């Protein structure tokens, strides 16, 4: 399997990365090389084997549904590039 040019720009879009044409070309080559390396997993017979998503047998962890202190909006917003009146500001999404 290999990543074709069309897919590189699709992947960049899905990854939310604006790439230059040079970056796209380089990444295309790198990804193909890395995927060849990744495909070593196909050497292993996994017929009937269940996947492991988590290394340890930890089940759902529940807690009491009670009110606990949480950060106030001020410190939560302090690292934001743009905020006003306790909200994050983003570029306009819905046109007038």
């Amino acid at each position, binding site marked *: *399997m290999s*990543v074709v040019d069309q*897919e*590189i720009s699709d*992947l*960049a*879009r*899905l*990854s*939310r*990365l*604006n*790439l230059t044409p040079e*970056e796209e070309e380089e*990444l295309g080559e*790198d*990804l193909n*090389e*890395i*995927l060849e*390396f*990744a*495909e*070593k*997993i*196909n*050497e*292993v017979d*996994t017929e009937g*084997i*269940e*996947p*492991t*998503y*988590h*290394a*340890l047998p*930890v089940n759902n*962890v529940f*807690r009491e549904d009670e009110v606990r202190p949480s*950060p106030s909006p001020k*410190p*939560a917003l*302090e*690292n*934001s*590039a*743009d905020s006003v009146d306790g909200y*994050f500001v*983003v*570029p*306009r*999404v819905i046109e007038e």
Partner: protein
Amino acid sequence: METELLDLSLNELQNKLQNSEISPVELVEASISRYQNFDKEINSFVSFNSKESLQKAREVDVSRENGPLAGIPLALKDNLCRAGYATTCGSNILEGHRPPYTATAVKAIEEAGAIIVGNANMDEFAMGSSTETSAYGLTRNPWDTERVPGGSSGGSAAAVAAGIVPAALGSDTGGSIRQPAAFSGVVGFKPTYGRVSRYGLIAFASSLDQIGPITRTVEDAALLTEIISGHDPADSTSLDQPVPEYHGNINPKPENLTVGIPAEYFGEGVDEEVETIVRQAASDLKAEGAELVDVSLSTTEQAISAYYVIATAEASSNLARFDGVRYGPRAQEFEDMIDMYSQTRAEGFGAEVKRRIMLGTFVLSSGYYEAYYGKAQKVRTLIKRDFENAFEKCDLILTPTTPTAAFKLGSRVDDPVQMYMNDVLTAPTNLAGLPAITLPVDANSDGLPVAAQLIGPSLSEQMLFDIAYLLQELSPWEPCSAPLKE
């Protein structure tokens, strides 16, 4: 004098502080002096707070009730959150980021009295094996400044090796504590997955990440592990199990010990000198009464491929949050919201992070998910079974930590696959969630440290510290700082 001071173990420092043989101010001054003399050359820190650390040293009461680390300077990897202090993951996308909260492990060492002098350099977002991808410039190996210190916790390892701090915290996703510790001639420990809370560790691959210590001795690694371990309601994957007193209970009993030697970890791709040195370490244990047995970890070669599929998949998801809205700088020019995200990320992330986000997005994308991500998770099951089967025949497994000693700067940074192969002997333990310790056992013919790795079953921390301590005593390598020239 100052070099001698910073060569002491945490326990020795603690005793000297309590007997008033040294003061915390002298200790912090020694650390600052080492930093000023050597860090221009090795660049192990991204931030160093001399003034504030001295102030804290003046105020600290070193009596025992104030904690086992009272008055001792330590460093943090730059991906561990500390309220109010810049934490950037070595990335421009988190430039100036000051978290509003402190990581549980960091809180633990603060409560134990440590003076955190600064943040250590790292590969951007912990993605690398050489500490050459940081936005703050590369870090050099204190044993040979033309070589890499390993990565991604290369700054933590180099700072300890250079004697700037006696110990540091790092994080290990596929070997990021152990590989740089091995390259830098220091001890590194990756605890059992869940032993240490990940709350406040900026996530790379959540099912693999674990915080751990980088120290000069095995005893110090045991002490720091004991301090940072434990259940944390803020991390639902942290284990609700009691934390033993590892440090005070180190007691090597090699007589009834069976040590597994996996052929797959000594074969092709492993430097001959490394193999000879690590086999000698195995013989040293045998001479003390341990039994050596051959074990097979047949999926080793495929494990590193499975690791890169799983780790990049998780990373592409974890790093989606860096979009110029909640943290970090925002791109100045863009057309709309999506373009703002994409331009901010294009400007903020370096090449290796982009590569891994793209790869992770690919292996999770529809049409490829089953072939890559799904398949890798099944291989992960077999990797776990390999270890389980091996531990039916042995108590622990002894291997080299890395296929080679530290390599030259720039020699692999343009070849991702060759760089990824650095983790071939460390990543399988992350996939299986197992604890593993690395310690230097000898020097190679270039004078570079060569390390052995001990891997144990889940929660076998105490045994690993016991046997690593024994190896530390038996091996030719003496814990020390690198001989940097001023």
